[in-house]
């Protein structure tokens, strides 16, 4: 456990994130220019999609892949109901805001997933390439549950819902992630070799700078935060712990290796701060972005990167240890 924590905190990717947090807290003028941050996020999505696609072209689509996909989609759909119940009771949020926040906690954060993949790979527990597809599949179901919770089952048939669904399924991260995944599958390893100097050599470096930027954004939003109460802050820590452990157990339960189970746990633990806020802005404009963005981006995201990924990884190793499943050492 301690060893895992030390590994997390010696990873340059995580340290750059910490640097971003610190820089913002001391009010440094450090900033990554917006177009560069945007370009880095596109590069990361393309690289992740490609790598996942290539891995699946090697391993093929088998029962494990299908069951991981189904588990991810079901979890994505159900997690918001759990979150909603807690937000409404302990969090004392109204119905609209509870639904909006719940959607964030069912959906996923690509950056958390990538950081987890880096950390897990460093611990010889690399998740299967198909987890990228699971991640893409988990992006949208929670938005649907969140809207049902906020609006009631019958109340979502207005014009803005169509616009919102279009936004969700055509948003740049989904299109690029899935597009690159298919390209990776079609091209296979031979095709990847041609482009790997660009997508592989630069990957970790770009991820470092991108996380530096995310650290800056997360901390600056935390400094400006006003609408988040201590109860909501506690929920933003509690949900990723519970969801993460449940997701990991689910992964082990359906027979995934330790790395992939941990990755599923991280996906369940992570909260969206890109796709879902954009969708909520269109579909639930009455909900307060100051609540959902601050919770998911400024509390849950740093908590996951700094602490929870290590916990989930150790838990996955522990569970696969007792069930006698593959330890994930590749």
């Amino acid at each position, binding site marked *: 456990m301690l060893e895992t924590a030390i590994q997390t905190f010696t990873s340059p990717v995580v340290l750059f994130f910490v640097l971003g947090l610190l820089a913002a807290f001391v009010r440094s003028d450090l900033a990554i220019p*917006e177009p560069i941050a945007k370009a880095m996020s596109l590069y990361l999505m393309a690289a992740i999609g490609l790598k996942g696609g290539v891995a699946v072209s090697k391993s093929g689509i088998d029962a494990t892949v299908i069951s991981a996909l189904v588990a991810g989609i079901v979890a994505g759909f159900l997690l918001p109901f759990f979150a909603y119940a807690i937000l409404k009771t302990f969090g004392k949020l109204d119905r609209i805001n509870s639904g909006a926040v719940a959607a964030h906690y069912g959906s996923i954060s690509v950056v958390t997933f990538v950081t987890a993949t880096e950390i897990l790979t460093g611990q010889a527990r690399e998740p299967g390439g198909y987890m990228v597809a699971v991640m893409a599949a988990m992006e949208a179901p929670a938005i649907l549950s969140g809207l049902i919770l906020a609006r009631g089952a019958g109340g979502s048939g207005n014009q803005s819902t169509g616009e919102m669904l279009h*936004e969700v399924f055509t948003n740049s991260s989904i299109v690029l992630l899935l597009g690159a995944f298919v390209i990776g599958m079609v091209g296979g390893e031979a095709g990847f070799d041609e482009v790997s100097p660009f997508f592989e050599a630069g990957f970790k470096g770009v991820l470092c700078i991108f996380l530096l930027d995310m650290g800056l954004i997360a901390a*600056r939003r935390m400094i400006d935060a006003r609408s988040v109460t201590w109860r909501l802050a506690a929920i933003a820590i509690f949900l990723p712990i519970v969801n993460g452990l449940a997701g990991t157990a689910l992964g082990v339960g359906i027979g995934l290796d330790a790395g992939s189970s941990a990755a599923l746990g991280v996906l369940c633990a992570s909260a969206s701060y890109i796709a879902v806020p*954009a969708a909520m*802005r*269109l579909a639930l404009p009455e909900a307060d972005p*100051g609540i959902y*963005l601050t919770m998911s*981006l400024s509390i849950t995201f740093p908590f996951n990167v700094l602490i929870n990924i290590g916990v989930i990884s150790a838990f996955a190793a522990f569970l696969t240890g007792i069930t006698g499943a593959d330890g994930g050492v590749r």
Partner: protein
Amino acid sequence: MIETVTRKRIEILTDKALQKRVTDAIEKAGIIGWTILPVSSGKGREGVWREESVMGTDKVFVLTIASEENAQALAEALAPMLTNFGFLLSMWDVQVIRGERFT
């Protein structure tokens, strides 16, 4: 002395994600042209915001010039969205050359 006419210049601050709703409303109000300007940061009733295109929280200014009548039609069409989406709408009189181009 060149001849000028009075028109309304309308300025709308909106989320980039909602830009299309605004430009659709402009065209529906019978106004031909509009211009989008990027903005970088600001502060409003809900606190400070910054251009964060990675998360899609960036905003834009939509500018348009219209006749008094169409400007009122546009303001009415956008009024219900102002509170919900935190738009900012302001308009004022400006002098334009070639007034027939601004309906």
